[in-house]
């Protein structure tokens, strides 16, 4: 049976956005299906595993609300990551206000990062997981966007408000740090 919706994996994000703006609800469904897991992985890399679903949901709500401002010269997924980062920071800020605790800026502190705690039986993977916990938040974000999402450094720079060169350095420092820690753990 043929696809009656006219939406396939070949349909571009820009075309889906146009269809959604014209009132096609299936286009929104396709966009969410296509990108929700990527956004979730990024949110986890930001250290927010416990609130992943809530934050991913907020990201899409905010994105669809502001979709008129989306410029098609950048990728929709990159734009979603930018919004996700903002959503996470906003949530942290409101939580800090509630707790009335003053903290250092995120980029300057190595937070406790237990998002990757899971039942991982493989010893080598356990070593990698522990090594990743030692990365700075910025290194983790760059590493995740590069490895699991395949973003080029220019787009990572857009998401994190940095330069492509700096992101490349962060990525290689992250890989080097993971390598060193795994090597140390193996000795």
């Amino acid at each position, binding site marked *: 049976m043929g696809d009656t919706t006219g939406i396939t994996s070949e349909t571009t994000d820009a075309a889906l956005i146009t269809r959604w703006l014209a009132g096609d*609800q299936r286009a*929104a*469904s396709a966009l*969410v*299906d296509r990108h*929700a*897991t990527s956004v*979730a*992985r990024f949110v*986890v*890399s930001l250290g927010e*595993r416990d609130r*992943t*679903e809530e934050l*991913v*949901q907020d990201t*899409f*709500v905010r994105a*669809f*609300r502001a979709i008129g401002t989306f410029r098609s010269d950048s990728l929709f997924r990159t734009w979603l990551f930018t919004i996700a980062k903002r959503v996470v920071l906003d949530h942290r800020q409101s939580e800090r206000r509630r707790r009335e605790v003053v903290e250092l800026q995120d980029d300057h502190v190595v937070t406790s990062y237990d*998002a*990757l*705690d*899971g039942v*991982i039986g*493989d010893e*080598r*993977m356990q070593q*990698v*997981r522990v090594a*990743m916990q030692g990365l700075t938040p910025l290194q983790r974000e760059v*590493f*995740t966007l*590069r*490895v*699991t999402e*395949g973003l080029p450094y220019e787009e990572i720079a857009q998401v994190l408000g940095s330069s492509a060169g700096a992101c*490349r350095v962060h990525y*290689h420092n992250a*890989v080097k740090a*993971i*390598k*060193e820690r*795994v*090597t140390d753990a193996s000795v």
Partner: protein
Amino acid sequence: MRVCDDDTMQDALPDYVQGRCADETAAVVRAHLASCAACAEEAELIAHAGEVIARATPSIATTRILAAVDAARASARPATPAPASTVIRTRRWWASRPIMAAAASILVVVSLSVPTRRGTPAGTNPEVALERSMGADAPGRATTAPGAVTSVDLAGGLATLSSAQLEALLSELDALEGTVRAEPATIALPLIDTPELL
């Protein structure tokens, strides 16, 4: 720890490991990995790291996300626009432009008059002093018409008025008891006839 100096290969590793490379590029990277222990080790770590992140990511219920998006869109839609008359009625009476302008003028004049008033000898009736000091055609003389607020020729600025004239002006303002006597005859409020903007 083994190290490779081939930046191009190192940059290509994440895409190779995740299967995102074109066939030709993948073949080149594969050939490099066969002869470079450092990159082979790095590729293994990247694969493990990707797996760790994937396992740590909870599954997402997209139906809930879509419901939230729909709810947000529905709440952002304008409700039935209120009739223009309702909108006008909700305006505060003192927020109309003529009344605000009158209030601002009174405040300015009163504030400029304070030093003069402080210098008036005790027991002096300002109106009497005004009558004494001003001739009928004295410049800047205050004139009062029945039922109208005193108007003073301020073309030369407050600095050209004598103390007595300023006192007289102050007295007139005092007589207003701090309020505007009446609403303006007509208040020109813009009618909102474009409901789509509401």
